[in-house]
């Protein structure tokens, strides 16, 4: 299951970044999001898997698609090929290799320190809710303030004259 969803996530992300048109990009992003939701379900994170589909695939991508269709862009986007971009790409590839190398080692450390059996009801709404509303209650409240600020900001920005 991991390899199926993992391939789906990789394919979605690559196609999203490489697609010529923004609308194809958004549709491939949905493939990526749904594959990740599948991975979360494999990892026993049921609440997060549901939220991934509802919030990302359901809300954020739909909003993005609305904006893409609203703007109706006609201009052709040129990738700026040149000396600078080649250097940038080389740098990214090198950093990415280092990054993947670190990631491939980090798991051993974690398994050495932890690797316990899953507790009963791991990842269900009840259990995640208990953690969220006791240990992380301040973080939760800050998130609500953040959403309020974003709401006001979006309203102000979308007024007729900015």
């Amino acid at each position, binding site marked *: 299951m991991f390899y199926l969803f993992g391939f789906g996530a990789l394919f979605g992300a690559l196609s999203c*970044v490489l697609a010529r048109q923004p609308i194809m990009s958004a549709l491939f*992003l949905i493939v990526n999001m749904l594959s990740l939701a599948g991975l979360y379900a494999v990892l026993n994170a049921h609440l*997060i898997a549901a939220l*991934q589909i509802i919030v990302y695939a359901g809300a954020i991508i739909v909003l993005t698609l609305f904006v893409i269709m609203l703007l109706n862009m006609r201009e052709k986007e040129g990738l700026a090929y040149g000396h600078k971009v080649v250097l940038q790409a080389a740098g990214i590839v090198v950093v990415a290799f280092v990054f993947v190398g670190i990631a491939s080692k980090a798991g051993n450390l*974690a*398994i050495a320190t932890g690797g316990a059996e899953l507790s009963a009801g791991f990842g269900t709404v009840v259990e995640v809710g208990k953690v969220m509303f006791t240990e992380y209650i301040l973080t939760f409240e800050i998130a609500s303030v*953040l959403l309020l600020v974003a709401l006001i900001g979006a309203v102000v920005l979308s007024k007729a004259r900015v």
Partner: protein
Amino acid sequence: MDIAVPLNHYLILSAVLFSIGVVGVVSRRNVIIIYMSIEVMLNAVNLTFVAFSTYLNDMGGHVFVFMVMAVAAAEAAVGLAIIIAIFRNRRSVDVDKVNLLKG
């Protein structure tokens, strides 16, 4: 939990997804595609959180993924409003043409 797959595979997948997102941010010129690449990067981080959370049997990671989703939703609202404002003023979503602060 799928014991057959080691934690490392999740971390490698996450690192590769994050790198793809970085490539998108750096190489594309369309601001909407840059925005979607940022979403890819956020999701790669979420995958790391959930994988560690499951393999260490600690649900704190799930709470943090929840917070990242809240931030992503806020970013979507404000970011798309900014994109619309830019397009309204300049008839373009090319980041190279938005150079007001370039001096």
